């Protein structure tokens, strides 16, 4: 006698068959919740990610750098919107998501709680932070939830420009005066470890990963992605003649990968808990921007209302 499959079992078999889940399909409540949390956090990260970089738009060293940085920051806003839209297909309410970010209830990537004291930080962010984000997002192009996967495909296409503009900044500085080269090295020193932390805790300490992998929301583990990023980035640092700030970094012939030193997880958890250098500043800036945009939203509403009234009147007269 064949056993009747439960909804959950049928869903798992569907996902195991590499089929995409679409908005109106039946899905386990926990799958929906996990996705709403992950996608909205991802969206919030894009939105907050604009802040450390916007800090440098007015001080970019040339017009070429300025237009590129402006375009990049504009892209991040767009990426936030694609992601919020994907979360909405799961029944999340946009207004609630935004409110959770503004009130500090929702999380976003901790990397954006680090400061950008010099122009070289803009180079390092594009190269390393966007590089790490790309590793994660390329994987997510194959995530099991259709709208999330499609948003990722769009985002990945655009991210490549972000990383290249960052690396180009690093190249100019690394080939510049000794002071400029030092600036680049200092920025690498500041961003290397936080970039490795972006992939999240090690696999043995990442409790939700197993279920996400089973549902094919995640396709690679935190440690796998981190390793990929390290192996890819080392030759790029060599080319710049800069030194990655990890004395334990070395090629492991047997594994076919680089070994790296211990990550300071205490720092990671501290920043997550709100004790990073810029947590307060970022939220305050986000709230200020939201409040100062209120009149725009109001004006748009008033205009839409007026147009609708006018149309109704015209119809009535006809």
């Amino acid at each position, binding site marked *: 006698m064949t056993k009747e499959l439960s909804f959950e079992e049928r869903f798992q078999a569907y996902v195991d068959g590499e089929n995409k889940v*679409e908005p109106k399909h039946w899905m386990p409540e926990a799958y929906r919740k996990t996705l709403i949390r992950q996608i909205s956090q991802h969206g919030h990260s894009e939105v907050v990610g604009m802040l450390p970089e916007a800090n440098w738009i007015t001080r970019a060293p040339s017009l070429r750098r300025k237009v590129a940085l402006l375009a990049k920051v504009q892209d991040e806003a*767009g990426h936030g919107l*694609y992601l919020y839209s994907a979360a*909405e297909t799961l029944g999340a309410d946009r207004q609630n998501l935004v409110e959770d970010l503004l009130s500090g209830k929702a999380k976003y990537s901790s990397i954006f709680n680090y400061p950008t004291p010099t122009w070289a930080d803009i180079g390092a962010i594009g190269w390393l932070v966007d590089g790490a984000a790309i590793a994660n997002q390329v994987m997510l192009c194959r995530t099991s939830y259709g709208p999330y996967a499609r948003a990722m495909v769009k985002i990945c296409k655009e991210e490549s420009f972000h990383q290249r503009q960052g690396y180009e900044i690093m190249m100019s500085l690394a080939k510049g005066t000794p002071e400029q080269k030092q600036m680049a090295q200092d920025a690498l020193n500041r961003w290397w470890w936080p970039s490795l932390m972006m992939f999240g805790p090690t696999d043995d300490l990442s409790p939700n990963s197993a279920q996400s992998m089973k549902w094919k929301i995640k396709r690679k583990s935190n440690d796998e992605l981190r390793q990929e990023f390290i192996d890819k980035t080392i030759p790029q640092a060599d080319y710049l003649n800069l030194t990655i700030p990890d004395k334990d970094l070395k090629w492991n012939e047997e594994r076919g990968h680089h070994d790296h030193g211990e990550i300071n997880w205490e720092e990671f958890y501290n920043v997550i808990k709100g004790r990073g250098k810029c947590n307060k500043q970022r939220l305050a800036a986000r709230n200020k921007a939201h409040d100062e945009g209120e009149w725009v939203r109001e004006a748009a*509403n008033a205009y*839409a209302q007026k147009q609708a009234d006018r149309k109704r009147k015209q119809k009535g007269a006809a």
Partner: protein
Amino acid sequence: MSNKDNWKIWEVFIRSRNGLSHKHVGSLHAPDAEMAIKNARDVYTRRSEGINIWVVPSDEITASNPDESEPLFTPADDKVYRHPTFYDIPDEIGHM
């Protein structure tokens, strides 16, 4: 009003070039159709992805129910005679 505004969700369709159909690219929020087009231009065509935009309020779209896809779509599966390869035509006739 502004914090709990009722900006509708609009589905966005883009024609990438003349000769091709509009294709669904995603959604966005806007208070009216005019703003929806403006927002769609900023959100979905930053890299020359399109030459024409359609916006449709999401709640105006009626979709078929995925739970009913079997009765809706499987009847077509056993109608092979709707395909040209169902018919045996000798090779010497050439392309038909």
